[in-house]
């Protein structure tokens, strides 16, 4: 980071960078303008254009739908852009250098935090895992990093912010980090090195020079814009379907209908939600609008968050990728630890809120 900053100071903005900044500022102004006309727009469609009565089930559901869809899509676009822009300042190589020589504990905390902000795609999990453990980073610290990235999912974070507000989004971020730290510490304490596939320890990592060229602002904006298109392009349909289901629940399901099965009184609902969520591979985009509507009808926050985290954190495709470097025993311990940590988090939320 330090070298990066001094380098930025040395090279003044190029005219291309000035143009890119101007473009981003204009886009931001348009974004804010659009964001502020969503509510009148939704009301106009539901009650003006379609002339539905204000207190009808259908009118309420449709107004909800036409408000939430543009709002969430706009929020996703804007915030994912900012998040990926921030991530362009980090790299896996840099993260490995920072984590090298850190003790367990401090290392786990740092690894979890870096897991959230380091650009990371699950297809890189194998080289990343090998590169980390070969350079001497403890197994538990590596796991904190590998857990934090999927548990704190950027789409989930933005959608929680949009549908529940910043407090719940912040709670999700904190509990995701805690789960990653705890899972890493537990795996580190259990001394599970023997359950890493043997070939991993025999690989000789090459000495090739690290890529050190810093991107310009224009390039950072391009990287962020490309990732934003990719991520939003992948989830927008889930968002719409999820919000449609959520809007139906919002308009038609009576208040507190779900308090009995998904409310705080039902102690078994948290583990049940996690058991249901782990094999269910979906993305946060489709699930959050539904759980948001369920909560209105009496489902407890802890139960709902536990369900959501187990859906996004433990996905089958990722386990298949990790299976190439981990023996089944370690994968089972990993899934068990994370699932248990999520269950405890769910209880904690139900207790506190």
């Amino acid at each position: 980071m330090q070298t990066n900053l001094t380098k930025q100071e040395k090279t003044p903005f190029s005219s291309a960078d000035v143009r890119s900044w101007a473009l981003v500022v204009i886009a931001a102004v348009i974004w804010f303008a659009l964001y502020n006309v969503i509510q009148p727009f939704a009301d106009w469609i539901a009650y003006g254009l379609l002339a539905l009565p204000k207190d009808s089930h259908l009118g309420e559901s449709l107004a909800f739908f036409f408000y939430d869809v543009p709002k969430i899509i706009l929020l996703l676009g804007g915030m994912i852009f900012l998040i990926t822009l921030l991530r362009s300042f980090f790299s896996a190589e840099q993260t490995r250098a920072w984590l090298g020589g850190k003790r367990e504990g401090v290392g786990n905390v740092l690894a979890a935090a870096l897991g959230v902000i380091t650009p990371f795609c699950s297809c890189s999990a194998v080289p990343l895992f090998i590169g980390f453990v070969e350079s001497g980073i403890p197994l538990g610290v590596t796991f904190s990093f590998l857990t934090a990235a999927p548990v704190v999912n950027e789409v989930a974070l933005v959608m929680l912010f949009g549908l529940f507000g910043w407090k719940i989004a912040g709670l999700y971020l904190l509990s995701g980090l805690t789960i990653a730290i705890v899972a890493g510490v537990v795996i580190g304490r259990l001394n599970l090195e023997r359950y890493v596939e043997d070939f991993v320890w025999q690989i000789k990592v090459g000495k090739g020079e690290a890529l050190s060229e810093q991107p310009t602002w224009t390039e950072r904006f391009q990287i962020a814009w490309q990732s934003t298109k990719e991520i939003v392009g992948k989830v927008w349909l889930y968002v719409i379907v999820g919000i449609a289901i959520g809007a139906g629940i919002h308009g038609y399901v009576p208040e507190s209908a779900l308090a009995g099965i998904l409310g705080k009184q039902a102690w078994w609902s948290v583990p049940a939600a996690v058991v249901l969520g782990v094999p269910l591979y979906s993305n946060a985009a489709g699930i959050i609008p539904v759980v948001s509507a369920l909560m209105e009808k009496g489902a407890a926050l802890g139960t709902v968050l536990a369900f959501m985290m187990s859906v996004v954190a433990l996905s089958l495709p990722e386990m298949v990728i990790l299976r190439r470097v981990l023996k089944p025993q370690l994968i089972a311990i990993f899934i068990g630890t994370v699932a248990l940590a999520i269950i405890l988090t769910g209880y904690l939320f139900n207790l506190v809120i």
Partner: protein
Amino acid sequence: MKTIKVLGTGCATCKRLLNDVNTLVVKNNWQVRVEYVTDVAAIMSYNVLSTPALVVDEKVLMTGHPGAAKVEAALFKALEA
């Protein structure tokens, strides 16, 4: 003849990079060999932490897929050297 290697673990982005590189080679009529490396041990010998990675004559040019235009520019530079 120079050799371009695409290091990838089989993910979607890796295949996209391989396709784009193949397209660029045909388009620019480069006399090169393109290899797709999926063996984890071989990938790690280049000391990369993220895939895909683009390698020309055993030197890592870039990791990830920053877009066909950047790949083309980087390959032009590396192949002319």
